[in-house]
């Protein structure tokens, strides 16, 4: 086998392996976050591990402590919603109706104990009216 053949064959194997990895990543088991609905569809007993959850902060649900070290809100998905209690640093722009990602543990009681909130960028950049 010549060097060129070997290089080509190696390239093919590596490309295939990488594609395979990308495909697996695209399937649901390998995600940066889960949606609220996906999380709640799991059996309650299997919810007790660390995940990131994505959803909207529900209207009239956000309560931020005065020293900004904790907050509680409802995380709203497409069909269901979940109560979240979060301790830890909060982003400055945390408001109601915003897309967020919460990192933390699920509790059997139906409460989600978060320790970090990331606000997500809007999917459309609008000019400010100011």
């Amino acid at each position, binding site marked *: 086998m010549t060097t060129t053949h070997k290089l080509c064959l190696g390239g093919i194997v590596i490309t295939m392996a*990488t594609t395979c990895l*990308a495909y697996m*990543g695209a399937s649901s088991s390998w995600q940066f976050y889960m949606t609220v609905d996906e999380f709640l569809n799991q059996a309650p007993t299997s919810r007790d591990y660390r995940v990131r959850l994505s959803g909207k902060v529900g209207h009239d649900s956000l309560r931020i402590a005065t020293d900004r070290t904790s907050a509680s809100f409802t995380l709203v998905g497409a069909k269901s919603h979940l109560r979240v209690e979060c301790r830890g640093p909060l*982003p400055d722009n945390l408001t109601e109706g*915003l897309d967020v990602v919460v990192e933390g543990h699920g509790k059997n009681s139906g409460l989600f104990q978060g320790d970090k909130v990331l606000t*997500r960028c*809007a999917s*459309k*950049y609008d*000019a400010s009216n100011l």
Partner: protein
Amino acid sequence: MQRSDLKIVSARWLTWLVTGLLVAALGMAMRVAPMEQSMGQVQRILYIHVSVAWLGLMGFAVMGVCAMLYLLHRNMAWNRWSQAANEVGWLCSSLTLFTGSIWAHAAWGTWWTWDPRLTTSLLLWALYSSCLILRGSIQESHRSARITSSLALLGLIDLPLVIMATRWFRGIHPTSPEMEPVMHFTLLLNVIGFTLFFSLLFLRRLRQLQTDNLLRKLELEALVNHPYPPLSAAGG
């Protein structure tokens, strides 16, 4: 490309032109483009972040292709191309991480998170750095070029992962959001401005490397003609 072909790179008017374009583009990003509604002023970092990110990827692609050409032809000229791409690309990649981090702090409320695109970009930066260090750490030029090129080729695997990370994997990093037309135009202008500026930087660095090579060659020829310089010449 020979050294003389790159003469235009050092023309002063070209430098002024490109720098002027870059300044205009940046000015547009700072002043003309409207402020974004939800993120405010900090969103303006987008124009720089996207431009350098694109150049960081481009730099690695250029480095990879030149590395492959070097390995095929064993011509040090290709290695100089790949080295210039490595240096400029590393700079862009570092700037991408830096500007992205600032933006993330304002927009997401964190400096860093292990989002797929962020992770793969960090890996790309690490690969850039490894190649850069490798170039310096091996003395023999062909040996150094060969080993660095192999690593650069290997690193090419990461490139599609960075590009497709937001499409293949679910993450927090935005995928080409919709924008106001003015914003779009500003972004386009910035991408063009940055691309021209860093291309000029790349070509100048390339020319510098070529000149350096030429100088060393001339020095060597002088050395071979007079293998043992007379002792008295040492003081002069």
